[in-house]
């Protein structure tokens, strides 16, 4: 039997993370993916199962651990693609689902579209009875407060964002 699963936990500096904790999550994700293949599942089953584990970890920037926007709200993106059929599905700026990757798969399998965004995608998640996201973690909210408190347009990467958000009163 052949099969391989590859996962990543995000590119960046990774200065403030516990290496052992992240390694454990990556291993769990890989095992979830490969178990799907061993059970006779497809590559699509494997990547979705692996990604759910990463989303559910709460320590990575996706699913439960997602960071927040300038208003302190969660808006998540996700996508899936099946290389055999050439079909793809994606969701953008969704707030409802705990696992946006599952909703992306539903878009691919149940609709005639490729990308659903915002309230329409959230409505689909609700009507499909997908688990609801509980909201940002304490870690993310703490991070947000730190960023907002030092939201100096000259000192952050997305200076234009911060400048316009401050001008429009969006950073409180």
């Amino acid at each position: 039997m052949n099969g391989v699963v590859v996962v990543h936990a995000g590119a960046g500096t990774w200065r403030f993370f516990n290496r052992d904790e992240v390694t454990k999550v990556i291993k769990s994700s890989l095992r979830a993916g490969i178990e799907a293949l061993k059970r006779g599942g497809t590559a699509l089953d494997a990547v979705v199962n692996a990604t759910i584990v990463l989303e559910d970890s709460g320590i990575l920037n996706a699913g439960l651990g997602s960071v927040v926007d300038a208003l302190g709200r969660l808006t998540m993106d996700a996508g899936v693609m099946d290389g055999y059929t050439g079909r793809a599905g994606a969701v953008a700026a969704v707030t409802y689902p705990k696992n946006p990757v599952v909703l992306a798969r539903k878009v691919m399998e149940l609709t005639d579209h490729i990308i659903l965004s915002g309230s329409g995608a959230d409505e689909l998640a609700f009507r499909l009875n997908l688990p609801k996201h509980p909201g940002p973690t304490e870690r993310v909210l703490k991070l947000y407060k730190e960023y907002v408190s030092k939201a100096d347009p000259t000192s952050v990467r997305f200076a234009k964002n911060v400048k316009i958000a401050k001008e429009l009163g969006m950073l409180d």
Partner: protein
Amino acid sequence: TVGAVALDNDGRLAAAVSTGGIILKFPGRVGDSAIPGAGFYADRYGAAVATGVGETIMMSLLTYRAVQLIKEGYTAITAAKMALQFHTSLFGKDTAGLIIVDRSGTPYGAYNTQAMPWGYIRVDMEEPYISGFP
């Protein structure tokens, strides 16, 4: 951002990606993770998933580019390196990373950031391979 690519026993490839985006992003902003060919792509030759600054990944079509290079005959490793090199030439360092697998089952992770924890496992492996920490 997190993501996964896989090859199954029937030779089928797939890609999945999920993200909360960038902290303090403008409300309504959509990144590369929702865009096929940018944040994720798969065909019968390869599958790839990207991570990094979405605004740059959307413009370089990073994952589509990497998989196209596989289709042109490059290995997954060379394709990932070449696609990322092209991306870096446009947008500089600290902007992106990607994982990839081709139809022979060769996995690889490439990044121009300080780190990108990634790993892979094959059906016949006891322990996964993990790499990419700073």
